[in-house]
């Protein structure tokens, strides 16, 4: 009770305000991100399952045994059967090789099936969501099939031996992501119509799918149990598709967004922790007199220790409670900003974020506040009579180590990401070392330099060295805050730029492949006629993999890997294409060297190499147009799929493949109003394959816009944390500055002189901090980009200018503004207070 009273009195007096504010902010940052991460996680899973139209899909090249679906139903799981294949559809004299999807009445189990009654309508309100697909006897078709077959809605098209009435325009199936295997326009039919049509014959290439979903009221373990049961019964023709595998490009955007949230949460946490450490330091200084009084009144050491332990606990509980409330509110704001994307019916977050908040509060108090006040009960009682007595607080080195350990533990516990934690900690350690060494040298130099200066410059520069102990702590606080803010700014900018690339109005949304050389001029002309631009034409040669290291690829191995069963697109390039980066080996030099060498090098995409168990130096034999062709793996590459430009699994040097028959491919942006170009193109060149990615890009755009908003909100919170750290650091030296100002004013110094001394001191500290921060930030950014976002390291020259400039301006202004009152109050009033 007494502690609580004292806490409230302390709050009034302001001693614990900074401590509480820092703690509340640390907890707020952690809980808001914990709450949100929970929801984002669920949203991500929902989004992925929607891309599958199910929670789990069994894909098979042959008919799926009925017992597999029977078992799922027996376990109360929902099932739906699907077949996809390519088939010719006719109407009068017109025909089209369509991509057919045959579904049952339960499809889709997840996500939405949308249709329209108005072909080519750009009006989004015309798009409706269907409960289930077409009934038997009907078909829903891609709008562009209508002009191709010269029919309209309500007309019939011929499908094998039967006729189907075209009842709706198919807009989107949840799992209609940019599959590279379909040929022409899509049609959706009822699975019961497949057999009567007689289009499936022995040897037809059909993909059978069994879609599985868990009812919302059932235990998720049912699904994993079924998955295990199914995995044991898979044949080599079958594979299970998980939500994670559903859509890489969207998952990548969301994943990066999630990592950014985690990064900003971690940065916010560290900033608040530093603010708390600094505020606790000041709190301990302010409490010395009170402890002296306690001792003079006869309070035992044990009782004073208990008092401060309970005080710490009260601060932890109050700080955590306030922080959790702020965190929950911030999280609601974030959810509001992301509401279009996040599912509305998400269950409320459970107890976990609350526990995380409380845990953070306690942990912060134990790691930062207790070491700062630990010495208080041991103060000699004589401190009440003599201010000059040395106060032996816990050694700064120990407190530094305890603080760093606490930050490390909090980071690892909170982010569950060792790489992220290591990146931030390395940056902080570099700053700590740089502050200790470079900071001290600069302060010493300023002392020496001050001899050659006059007036306020002389006093200010001399002060930097005179107050070096305090200045070093301040410098660490300032540098850490600026470094973490710079890190956030760089990562945020690079992420948003990356996403903007996807949002770019010119980002291609269609691929044209299999364009024959003689079709190239005509296709190009048609594209120009529609005033469209391609991303450039890429040559490619179709070939199959035949042998690995001289040994024929076995039938069993071919069954396991889809890439071994089909023709692959082989291309060539002299320079490494944009968006590609070498993972192992090296890119080739001038073509003359290669042509002289006996071995033909090939560069393979790294994931495919891993899947096929291939490594550098392996010899691959390709069969191209019946001719065998051998190459040796010279490098593995990772590809960027974000920019929607053609990418190739296998790349050769120039002058190797040119003699083989080649086709061309390109990507281009087709706006909805010009979509009819596809009909003209396919009518003139029926063998050209079109891959439509416009729907998926629209979805990416929507998500990216919202994630960007979330990122901006988090950045603002982090900025507040940064300012709090600076505020805490500035307040460290305030009482001494007040004292000094009072004395200087008493002996007749002008307000202007005092203000300029403070301005010079704080600005110098800010510039130094900005410089040291740039060093720490460059290291932290390099690690974060490399370890977390898989981006290459780049030198950021602008931060070396922005850091010192922002540091000087921000700390110069904040510091001078804060200490301004020392020049406005009456000197006697201040002296009496001290």
């Amino acid at each position, binding site marked *: 009770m007494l502690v609580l009273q004292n806490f409230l*009195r302390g709050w009034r007096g302001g001693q614990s305000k900074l401590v509480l504010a820092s703690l509340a902010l640390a907890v707020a940052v952690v809980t808001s991100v914990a709450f949100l991460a929970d929801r984002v996680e669920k949203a991500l899973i929902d989004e992925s399952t929607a891309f599958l139209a199910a929670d789990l899909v069994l894909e098979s090249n042959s008919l799926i045994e009925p017992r597999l679906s029977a078992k799922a139903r027996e376990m109360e799981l929902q099932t739906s059967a699907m077949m996809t294949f390519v088939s010719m559809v006719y109407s009068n004299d017109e025909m089209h090789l369509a991509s057919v999807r045959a579904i049952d009445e339960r499809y889709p189990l997840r996500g939405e099936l949308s249709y329209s009654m108005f072909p080519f309508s750009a009006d989004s309100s015309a798009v409706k969501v269907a409960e289930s697909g077409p009934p038997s006897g009907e078909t829903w078709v891609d709008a562009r099939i209508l002009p191709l077959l010269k029919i309209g809605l309500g007309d019939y098209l011929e499908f094998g031996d039967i006729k189907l009435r075209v009842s709706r325009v198919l807009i989107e199936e949840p799992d209609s992501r940019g599959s590279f295997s379909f040929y022409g326009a899509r049609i959706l039919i009822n699975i019961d119509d497949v057999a009567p049509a007689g289009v499936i014959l022995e040897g037809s290439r059909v993909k059978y799918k069994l879609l599985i979903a868990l009812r919302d009221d059932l235990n998720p373990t049912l699904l994993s149990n079924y998955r295990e049961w199914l995995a044991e019964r898979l044949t080599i023709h079958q594979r299970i598709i998980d939500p994670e595998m559903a859509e890489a490009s969207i998952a990548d955007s969301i994943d990066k967004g999630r990592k950014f949230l985690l990064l900003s949460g971690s940065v916010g946490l560290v900033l608040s922790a530093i603010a708390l450490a600094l505020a606790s330091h000041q709190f301990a200084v302010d409490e010395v007199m*009170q402890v002296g009084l306690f001792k003079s009144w006869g309070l035992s050491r044990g009782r004073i220790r208990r008092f401060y332990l309970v005080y710490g606990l009260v601060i932890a509980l109050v700080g955590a409670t306030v922080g959790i409330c702020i965190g929950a509110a911030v999280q609601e704001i974030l959810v509001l900003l992301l509401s279009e994307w996040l599912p509305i019916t998400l269950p409320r977050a459970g107890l976990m974020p609350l526990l995380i908040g409380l845990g953070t509060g306690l942990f912060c108090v134990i790691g930062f506040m207790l070491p700062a006040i630990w010495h208080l009960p041991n103060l*000699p009682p004589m401190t*009440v009579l003599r201010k000059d007595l040395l106060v032996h607080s816990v050694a700064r080195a120990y407190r530094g180590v305890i603080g760093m350990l606490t930050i490390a533990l909090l980071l690892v516990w909170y982010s569950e990401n060792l790489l992220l934690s290591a990146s931030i900690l390395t940056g902080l350690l570099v700053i700590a070392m740089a502050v200790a060494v470079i900071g001290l040298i600069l302060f010493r130099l300023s002392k020496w330099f001050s001899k050659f200066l006059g007036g306020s410059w002389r006093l200010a520069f001399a002060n930097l060295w005179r107050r070096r102990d305090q200045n070093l702590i301040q410098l660490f606080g300032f540098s850490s805050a600026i470094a973490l803010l710079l890190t956030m700014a760089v990562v945020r900018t690079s992420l948003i730029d990356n996403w903007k690339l996807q949002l770019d109005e010119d980002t291609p949304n269609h691929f044209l492949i299999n364009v024959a050389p003689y079709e190239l001029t005509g296709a190009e002309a048609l594209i120009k006629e529609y005033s469209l631009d391609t991303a450039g034409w890429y040559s490619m040669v179709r070939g199959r993999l035949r042998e690995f290291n001289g040994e024929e690829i076995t039938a069993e191995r071919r069954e396991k890997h889809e890439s071994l069963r089909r023709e692959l697109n082989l291309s060539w390039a002299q320079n490494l294409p944009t968006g590609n980066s070498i993972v192992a080996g090296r890119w080739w030099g001038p073509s003359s060297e290669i042509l002289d060498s006996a071995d033909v090098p090939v560069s393979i995409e790294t994931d495919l190499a891993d899947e096929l168990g291939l490594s550098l130096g392996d010899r691959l034999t390709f069969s191209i147009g019946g001719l065998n062709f051998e190459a040796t793996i010279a490098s593995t590459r990772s590809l960027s799929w974000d920019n929607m430009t053609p990418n190739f699994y296998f790349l050769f040097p120039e002058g190797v493949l040119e003699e083989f028959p080649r086709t061309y491919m390109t990507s281009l942006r087709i706006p909805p109003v010009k979509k009819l170009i596809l009909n003209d193109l396919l009518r003139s060149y029926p063998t050209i394959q079109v891959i439509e990615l416009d729907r998926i890009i629209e979805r990416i755009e929507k998500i990216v816009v919202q994630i960007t908003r979330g990122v901006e909100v988090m950045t603002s919170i982090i900025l507040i944390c940064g300012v709090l750290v600076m505020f805490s650091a500035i307040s460290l030296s305030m009482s001494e500055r007040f004292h000094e100002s009072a004395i200087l004013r008493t002996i007749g110094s002008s307000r202007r002189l005092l203000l300029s001394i403070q301005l010079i001191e704080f600005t110098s500290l800010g510039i130094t901090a900005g410089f040291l921060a740039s060093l720490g930030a460059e290291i932290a950014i390099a690690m974060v980009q490399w370890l977390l976002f898989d981006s290459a390291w780049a030198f950021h020259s602008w931060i070396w200018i922005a850091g010192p400039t922002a540091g000087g301006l921000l700390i110069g202004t904040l510091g001078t503004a804060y200490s301004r009152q020392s020049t406005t109050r009456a000197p006697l009033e201040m002296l009496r207070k001290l």
Partner: protein
Amino acid sequence: MIHVSNVSKKVMVLNAELTILESLSLKVETGESLAVIGPSGSGKSTLLGLMAGLDVPSTGTVHIAGINITEMSEESRASVRSEHVGFVFQSFHLLQSLTALENVSLPLELKNSSKPESTANHYLKRVGLKDRMHHYPRQLSGGEQQRVALARAFACRPNILFADEPTGNLDIVTGEAINNLLFELNREEGTTLVIVTHEQSLASLCSRQLHLKSGQNFTPVEEMKVKC
């Protein structure tokens, strides 16, 4: 009440031993008022700290209320202080975040006294601050702050009150008013009073004066004069 016997105090300053007090002995009887006077650096505050049990001597013994506190641990000395000792300081040492009433009640609360607030209320009225009870130290003048400090000290009903330059921060008129109040309260409560001061006017109000005279070469206590 206080018995100081052959006490010396030495401290290490910059690796050199500095003698602040040497071979000092004195007795303060119950109800007596003693003024310790002397120039700055003569060891007045050090002696007060030793007599109050805030510190221990390098050699010699100190008894408070018949208890030898010299060999005691800090914890045991704290318990002696709690029972017998009160303080008034030169710079008042009021807690800035507490009102006058709270400043006076806090030590009572810490001592688990019954009705700390009404006791504090009584003493604040006694020192003439009836209308300033809910004011914060920053809203009070220096003299008023020292009145609060007096109320706080006497509210705990100590057997011995130590005052360290109680009027050092006040002007002459206010200082005299505080002095008078201090001695009035002392008489009313029957407290033993030990005052450290360099003001002769204050010292002259005490029943006894002890002069500490500092010397040269870091041996400040060369001579001890006792005036009765």
